[in-house]
């Protein structure tokens, strides 16, 4: 008979080495409900109300800055004076006025053109750029009295899109247009202090600017096991990823997705790295495009064409509403659900819908319904009768709106899934997405092109796209590449701008440090 000790190497007793459990850093989180829409909202309103709201809200700020800069300016013997309406500018008089910009571009989709040419298109044309090189684009300034065209070389030096509120100084020329001498933007809105809405984890008493209201749930969430949270918090990180593009048909980045999963779970790499780096990741923010829309219809029609021996065009009868419902593939959302449900027990996740996700098509996108995630839904907040935005605490899985605003670890975060920047990108000549993000902060409007070319809800009471307060971090998902910048405002505001690349293309994710707001990039490569 062979005893166990003689046969070495088959079975071993459990080792006596002490293994310490590494626990993840806590994340203090309070989402704001700025972009939630009521369930019983009506669409009977006109979009003019949205423009009016935007103008009325931002106009005082613009006029203040313009008055400070231009009052008393004398050019060519004339003093600049303010006029109330855009149409009050007279020839030969130097004056300044504020209003909304409207860009008249021939390449923009125009419903009147389509109707007059009698073309019925089911979906709007998506051209790459509306900006036309040969100067056919016109910039007009509009307010509640009328519209006036703007000309001048100054216009080429700044980004301008439909919907931003500006103040211009100039005079009227022979053609009835305003020759612009100077332009002013409202610039950054006042920025709240850190920890305005939540309380910092204060064990070493009196830390942070704790002037916010105390929330009972917040105290529950802070785990009081770390000895000196403020000093040791130097490493807490927030991970932002976008463009996961779970797809049932495209496996080219599936390996990297698995590695990302292990990285976030903390199972990859050795134990030292786990303790130092991976356990510091306190929250994951998924910024859009988690599900890819590469449908299986293309495959099917190709297969059908080949098997017939001829190249047949796809049969139109199987397609209704633009997609083939018989080829619905539930796999992408299942894969996303599995990814989330394995990640959620140890890390809170915020999920923003993107352009390709199953949420509504117009801005602001409402949260993806929890029914899409049968396994992860137990981590969502329980449905509250009072509706979204009530005082119920956010769940471990926070499926949120796009755009999204929250206070994470005290800092005010503002994030979108990318549709707003992509739309602004079509209006201007440059490729600099960070410059456009900075321009949006200085215009105080997150989506100025809504509702002109970006589909949006017709707001009637208040426009949530107006930035009444500047965030500390502004990130945009699903961009072609990673970049980051810090911009400063006139009253000392500091904003960190980040473009988060699409994971399916670049295999990168972004880590933001919660104390210094520095950004680092992690690339997952398999070769």
């Amino acid at each position, binding site marked *: 008979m062979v005893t166990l000790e003689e046969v070495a190497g088959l079975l071993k007793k459990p080792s006596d080495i002490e293994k310490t459990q590494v626990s993840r850093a806590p994340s203090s989180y309070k989402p704001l409900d700025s972009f939630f829409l009521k369930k019983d909202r009506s669409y009977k*309103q006109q979009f*003019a*109300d949205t423009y009016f709201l935007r103008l009325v809200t931002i106009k005082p700020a613009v006029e203040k800055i313009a008055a400070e800069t231009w009052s008393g300016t004398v050019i060519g013997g004339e003093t600049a004076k303010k006029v109330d309406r855009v149409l009050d500018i007279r020839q030969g008089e130097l004056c300044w006025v504020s209003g909304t910009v409207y860009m008249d571009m021939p390449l923009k989709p125009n419903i009147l053109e389509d109707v007059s040419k009698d073309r019925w298109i089911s979906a709007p044309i998506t051209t790459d750029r509306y900006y036309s090189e040969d100067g056919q684009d016109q910039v007009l300034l509009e307010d509640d009295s009328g519209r006036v065209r703007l000309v001048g070389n100054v216009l080429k030096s700044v980004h301008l899109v439909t919907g931003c509120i500006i103040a211009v100084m100039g005079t009227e020329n022979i053609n009835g247009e305003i020759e612009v001498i100077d332009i002013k933007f409202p610039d950054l809105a006042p920025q709240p202090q850190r920890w305005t809405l939540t309380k910092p984890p204060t064990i070493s008493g009196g830390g942070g600017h704790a002037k916010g209201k105390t929330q009972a749930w917040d105290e529950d969430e802070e785990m009081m096991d770390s000895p000196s949270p403020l000093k040791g918090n130097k490493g807490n990180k927030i991970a932002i990823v976008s463009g996961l593009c779970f797809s049932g048909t495209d496996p080219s980045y599936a390996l990297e997705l698995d590695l990302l999963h292990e990285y976030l779970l903390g199972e990859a790499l050795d134990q030292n790295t786990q303790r130092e780096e991976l356990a510091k990741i306190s929250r994951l923010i998924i910024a859009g495009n988690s599900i890819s829309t590469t449908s299986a219809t293309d495959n099917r029609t190709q297969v059908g064409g080949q098997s017939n021996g001829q190249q047949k065009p796809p049969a139109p009868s199987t397609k209704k509403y633009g997609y083939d419902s018989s080829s619905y593939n539930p796999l992408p959302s299942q894969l996303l659900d599995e990814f989330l449900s394995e990640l959620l027990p140890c890390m809170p996740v915020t999920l923003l819908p993107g352009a390709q996700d199953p949420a509504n098509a117009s801005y602001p996108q409402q949260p993806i319904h929890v029914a899409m995630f049968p396994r992860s839904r137990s981590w969502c907040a329980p449905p509250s009768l009072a509706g979204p935005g009530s005082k119920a605490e956010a769940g471990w899985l926070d499926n949120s709106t796009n755009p999204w605003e929250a206070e994470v670890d005290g800092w005010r975060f503002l994030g979108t899934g990318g549709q707003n920047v992509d739309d602004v990108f079509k209006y201007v000549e440059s490729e600099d997405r960070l410059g456009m993000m900075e321009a949006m902060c200085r215009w105080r409007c997150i989506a100025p092109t809504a509702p002109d070319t970006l589909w949006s809800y017709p707001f009637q009471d208040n426009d949530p796209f107006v930035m009444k307060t500047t965030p500390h971090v502004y990130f945009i998902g699903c961009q072609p590449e990673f970049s980051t910048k810090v911009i400063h405002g006139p009253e000392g505001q500091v904003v960190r701008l980040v473009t988060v690349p699409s994971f399916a293309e670049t295999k990168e994710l972004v880590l933001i440090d919660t104390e210094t707001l520095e950004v680092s990039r992690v690339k997952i490569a398999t070769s």
Partner: protein
Amino acid sequence: MPTTRRATGGARAQHGPGKGQSTLSFSNRVSKSVSRQDAKKPVVSPITEKDAEEDVPEVTKVEVEPEETLEVEQKETKEETEEEAVEEEQVPTKSEAELRAEKISDAQIAKYWKNVQAQSIAPQVHVEDVSLGEKILRHFDVSLHYGPCVGIQRQKRWERAEKLGLNPPIEVLAVLLKQESPGKQQAHMDELLNSTAVGA
């Protein structure tokens, strides 16, 4: 044991074996007075004042119900009072502007209209058969300073302008309140643009 939350209705709508018992009325527990037109909650509305008086002697007679249901009902009434408190907060702020508007007399309205007319160069034509109130409302409709008038009701537009700090004239709100309900809430321009012709 934490209080369990029952389905809506609670002790009030008990079917089956509980049907024979009289329901406890909690309308007298709420000590704040809520104006009748604002209390639009299905829980409170079926109980009229008469019932409350009748139920008061019954409350003392009915035996003490098990603690759980009492706690549940207390929780419900607490939520009711919270909701009513919220509505109460809304009611005073609404009636603040409304109170001011109700104090405006007809003479003040006429004076306001005279001032408005004095600012225009020519007198209005084709408005002989339009009442003074309607004239004022139409003037408010076309004042672009307060936003477009199409697609929004007049009173809501006034309240939105007030909220945005545009100082709309209080006389307009006075005229709106003096109309018999529902009154003409749709702007005249809106009616013309969205008119639907009813065929013969």
